[in-house]
């Protein structure tokens, strides 16, 4: 079966460290695609066949580590080329420096200076509208999404597939896998869908989000509301595009070894909400989000003490503090599947547990199979 090959962890019992003279199996495997890209003669013996078909694409932990090392050394090379004179100029005239940095980034300097000042004025005067859920479209489109767009394009290099399955109008329910310790996948999904069809995705989040300071604030501002039957139905009735992550914290807090293995899909509440509102369900598979924070342990004792579902222990966090919170730059693919329609069922079907379970299973299987297919196509977690 396909799944058994992909989610395999470890290198079949052999440690991937290599012996003094020859590099490890994973390092050799890594060298091959790079050499092919450069199309230069290579003195490495290396496997003859291309990486994809030579053997099962099992990303071992050691591969991950060596890929990371390569990435870090690459960025160190970039650091070396930073011109010292420019830094000196910056120190001499910080305002000027900030303006140039902002111009280079192109984030804040979208329009003219007058527009920016006008925007700040409306914000400071509170002259902006929020909807009944606390969603602030102005903040979301002008500040939140541009920042996420940067992250999505430069850091995760997100590739969107199947955008034609997204409805241009009317309500729909996006159902997606959830992983990566922090709900970055939801945020990136919001940015990508907005760029594709110009609609905001309204997320449904767990109550912990609304219990936690600042997370409550950001979630409400960017259109997230509590994952409950009432709010789901209210959003769907208002012709909104709604996204739900039925794995919840079970998904976010799954260990690295379990990546891309979908957890239980709740009690199927999202399906009954979709049936009741007669809206299509769009299965969405996100590949890449499950590698951003490779969770080694959930630190159960600590998380119980803190009252959170899990405390993420990754190779970098909490050991490197804030630096350890930087997500690993995995390569993301978001695939929107074909819609599963519910309108032929009739609203009464929402109360039939068998129908609800069947559709829940169908959605879950679709996402799981899409994940496997995307993983087969992907060359590595980071490139």
């Amino acid at each position, binding site marked *: 079966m396909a799944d058994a090959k992909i989610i395999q962890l470890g290198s079949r019992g052999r440690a991937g460290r290599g012996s003094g003279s020859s590099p490890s199996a994973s390092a050799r495997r890594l060298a091959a695609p790079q050499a092919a890209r450069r199309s230069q003669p290579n003195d490495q013996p290396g496997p003859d066949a291309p990486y994809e078909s030579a053997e099962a694409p099992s990303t071992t932990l050691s591969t991950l580590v060596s890929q990371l090392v390569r990435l870090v050394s690459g960025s160190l090379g970039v650091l070396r080329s930073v011109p010292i004179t420019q830094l000196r100029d910056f120190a001499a005239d910080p305002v000027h420096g900030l303006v140039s940095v902002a111009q280079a980034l192109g984030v804040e300097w979208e329009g003219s200076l007058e527009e920016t000042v006008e925007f700040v004025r409306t914000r400071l005067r509170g002259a*902006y509208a929020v*909807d*009944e*859920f606390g969603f*602030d479209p102005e903040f979301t489109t002008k500040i939140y999404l541009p920042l996420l767009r940067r992250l999505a394009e430069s850091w995760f290099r997100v590739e969107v597939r199947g955008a034609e399955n997204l409805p241009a109008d009317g309500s729909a329910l996006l159902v997606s896998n959830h992983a990566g310790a922090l709900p970055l996948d939801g945020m990136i999904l919001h940015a990508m869908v907005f760029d594709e069809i110009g609609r905001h995705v309204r997320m449904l989040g767990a109550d912990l989000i*609304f*219990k936690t300071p600042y997370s409550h*604030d950001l979630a*409400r501002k960017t259109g997230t509301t509590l994952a409950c039957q009432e709010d789901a139905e209210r959003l769907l009735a208002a012709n909104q595009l709604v996204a739900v992550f039925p794995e919840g914290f079970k998904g976010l807090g799954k260990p690295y070894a379990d990546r891309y293995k979908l957890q239980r899909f709740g009690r199927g509440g999202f399906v009954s909400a979709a049936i009741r509102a007669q809206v299509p369900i769009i299965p969405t598979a996100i590949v890449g989000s499950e590698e951003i924070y490779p969770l080694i342990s959930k630190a159960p004792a600590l998380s119980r003490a803190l009252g959170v579902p899990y405390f993420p222990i990754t190779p970098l966090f909490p050991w490197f503090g804030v630096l350890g919170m930087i997500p690993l730059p995995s390569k993301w693919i978001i695939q929107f599947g074909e819609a599963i329609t519910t309108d032929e069922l009739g609203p009464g079907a929402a109360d039939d547990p068998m129908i609800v379970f069947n559709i829940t299973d169908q959605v879950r299987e679709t996402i799981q199979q899409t994940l496997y297919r995307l993983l087969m196509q992907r060359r590595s977690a980071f490139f």
Partner: protein
Amino acid sequence: MAADRVILVTGVSRDLGSRFARTLAAEEHVEVVGIDVVPPRHDLGKADFVRADIRNPVISKVIATRGVDTVVHLAVVATPGPGGRSSMKEINVIGTMQLLAACQKAATFRKLVVQSSISVYGASPRDPAKFTEDMSARAQPRTGFGKDSLEIESYVRGLARRRPDVIVTTLRLANLMGAGVDSHVTRYLSLPVVPRVMGFDARLQFLHPSDAVAALLLVTRRDVPGTFNVAAADIVTLSQALRKMGRPSLLVPQTAAPLVATLIRQARLVDFSTDQIDALTYGRAMDTSRFTAETGFVPQLSSRAALTEFVGAAKPGLLSPERVDGALAAVSQLLRSATVRSG
């Protein structure tokens, strides 16, 4: 006087009560009797004023001698007065009990309108975005006005059970907002520096007093039995309200909020109960579609408009629009010169 209806209005000395009584009394064939423990501050128009305490059995005498058929109960106190929390509870809970006991015995009595509050829904992070009338609080309010409102509603339900012939309407009103409104929310928003819970931006929903009066008049004139949410449909966030007020905020960690509330209470600025702190942390809003569907009533002023009216009448804050504009002009001048230099 040959009036068709005799209407008793409690809590008539307060703003909402007096406006309601005055408007109602202006109608033909309606006799309005207003009662309160203190003389009215405002003109009651053609309404009669009887100085009586609803906590006293004398109330049943008033109902009997005047032949009251409708009781509009507005003597509900959301903010502790000079008597403190215990006196507030006594007015709310014991007062309602006595009033309803007197009503139950009266033969002429056939209709009851009660002012309840959004507080019955409590406030917690597990709340849905909007409460409908059928939902109950996810976190039952255990103190303060929220608990009082719940108890008042339970007494009202008890009366409806014992007197099935009586038409009972309960209106859950949102926080009143508008020029001159004095409530714990308006007092809080008027503090020179407003402490608020760090990392939370509560959703606030308001109701203009004129809309509250209109809704109460509507259910008094027409028979609309049931419990209804009455509020403007839109919401305003706390940070937005503070910016409109020009008030700088002081961020307080959630665990320290009760302590800060105690300090503010001791400084006699605003009196908060725990459930009100929760409401200003997590925010809450009501779905008003049932009342609109049943009666066709739509509030004239949105929450934002009501707030704007209040801001217009309130003292300008430290961060008044003029100062904000001045600071912005200075910053933009600085940036403009920098962009010119950078080419």
